[in-house]
């Protein structure tokens, strides 16, 4: 039962990563590890998401 629960959880996490659903959480984690010392604030979710989208669609991203 526990094993099943663990695997469902893992699948769910993978799904969130693939879809980009947890991108902001991963950004926060990264920010706290590397950039928190400088005293700035991390981007809020909305701004982060907007920047990500603009970056993602800059250049050739879809093929035939």
């Amino acid at each position, binding site marked *: 039962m526990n094993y099943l629960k663990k695997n469902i959880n893992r699948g769910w996490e993978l799904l969130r990563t693939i879809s980009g659903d947890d991108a902001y959480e991963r950004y926060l984690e990264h920010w706290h590890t590397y950039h928190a010392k400088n005293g700035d604030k991390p981007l809020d979710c909305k701004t982060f998401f907007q920047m990500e989208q*603009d970056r993602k669609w800059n250049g050739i991203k879809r093929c035939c």
Partner: protein
Amino acid sequence: MKSLKIIAWVLVTFLGVGAIGAIALHRGETINSVWFIVAAVCVYAIGYRFYSAFIATKVLLLDPTRATPSERLNNNRDFVSTNKWVLFGHHFAAIAGPGPLIGPTLAVQFGYLPGTLWILVGAVLGGCVQDFVILFFSTRRNGRSLGQMAYDELGIIGGSAALVGVMVIMIILIAVLGLVVVNAMKYSPWATSTVAATIPIAILIGLYMRNIRPGRVMEGTLIGVILLLLAVVGGGWIDQQPNLRHWFNYDGPTLALLIIAYGFSAAAAPVWLLLAPRDYLSTIMKIGTMLMLAVAVIVLRPEIKMPALTQFIDGTGPIFGGGLFPFVFITIACGAISGFHSLISSGTTPKLLSNEMDARLIGYGAMVVESFVAIMAIIAATIMDPGVYFAINSPVGIVGKEAVDAIAVINSWGFPINIAQMHQLAADMGEASLFARTGGAPSFAVGMASIFANTFGTNMTAIWYHFAIMFEALFILTTLDAGTRVGRFMLQDLLGNLYKPMGRTSWYPSVFFTSALVVSAWGYFLYIGTLDPLGGINSLWPLFGIANQMLAAIALCVATIILIKSDKLRYVWITAAPLTWLVIVTSVAAWEKLFNPELRIGFLSHAQDLTTRLAGGVLPSDITVIEAQQLIFNDYLAAALTTFFLITTWILVLETLRISYRIITGKSHLALSEAPYQLSQKITTKSRLIIKN
């Protein structure tokens, strides 16, 4: 353990050879599609396990201790290490578009065999190798794009050829994809209203993910998918309403103008509003539907009714003119080898790669999956009666406008079909008529709908058909939006050199001007395509195929030069062999498209024929004088483009040969542009020891 593995691989080999033998030598009425799946899986497994391993360990020397751009240049913006399976998904979603569904469907006019063999061999020895080596070389060069690599390794000539090539191929690609959507929506209120509904749905999801629940991608996508499914059902309802359906009932040229207007607004609009949310929806639909189709084919194991070879290998085929050689290799680009992939494999994916070793799975592996999608398209096109396949895919210019005439012509080819059968099929699919629905999308949708209907219940056939049309239109429109934007950016970049403000991507006059320029370029080909009695696909698809193969040739030239510079001359054939094949194929195809006296093959002979007819006042009944003049101009334009492709390819090949000669003879040449080695910090001392031993 080791001997067990050897036995297993020997079995896979025998199974694969057996399945290919069965497909190739079978001469009965029908053959089961299971053979295709088995042959494909075995070929891919052997190709991946042995050939890609050989390339990885002997030729490219993938190095797990070497830091990738995502580690060396990690700024958490462009360069983010990504789990290899996640990246595999992203890379696959980026490379796989409508191409592997359309090309194979069209190529089935030669029978099931040529397309199938080319997809398998072309992918394993060509397309997968191209994607893999370009991904790897770009990773070793800080994720530089194909154009930049061509510039670095081949010099200014190679660099410019790549840049112009990308621009032109984009224009042709968008035009031909637009034509495919137009043909799927022509006189079909159900299809048109469903496809139209995808626009407000995408906008709604865009607003949801930006303002209501920022970043909640999964929620937004789920809501979008539900709305899309409702739109498919709703389209059927609209089709039944006499006072509503005429709002969505258009002929080809009108739909072309609507698509052009749409393309302009989509390219000028911000990405979050339409493009990004539509992409989430199209990606999930694409992966979901393909998985469902694979499961359905395996469960149903339908019989293939198309013969192995048809008489049309002589070049008289109705769907596109031209013989088996070289046109099967031009028609099927995506699914076998697609030059466009090299633009994704360089630039985008390398910046996310977390370890060099992942390049094999992502570069070679993702293309294997795309190739499998192409095999499924072959299956979907060949399980219907050949007569039905030709009735749907043959343009009116070949079989005539009236159903009776079309049936008579198709019967005369030896493919039995009657009017009642076509009426019944159209009724089942919820369409007024399925005659002359060229472009491959309706034909694929019919195949897919019948597979799904037979697996999941026949009472929903019409819904499955329009689901398939919606699903194809969804990612065709994504490619159209994304392609137009890329064209716009490239143009702005170029014009920015002449007048600074033009280069600013947020300056509205520049945005509108460049968007309009790009849209009118592909819009022109699209609109003319809808006027062409031969269906437009006949001239545009080969042009696209030639352009795509030319891009692959550019990518392989770059890879070949890098291999020679890296002292890998004795392994140079892994890219030089597919390169040679592509150069032969594109050159012969381009030559035939230019100078073949057959009207449906040679652009110039077609133009001359129309000119003579125009002068003599004996035009075919279905074209006006103005249309004839447009078609003549279009023929010359297509001929000019073909000449351009031919010349560019050869300039590049000769340049590659010249540089190779200089390298081999020790004369001066541009140095290898590889970024210097840097030890990956992710590698622990322990694993370093393991790797060393």
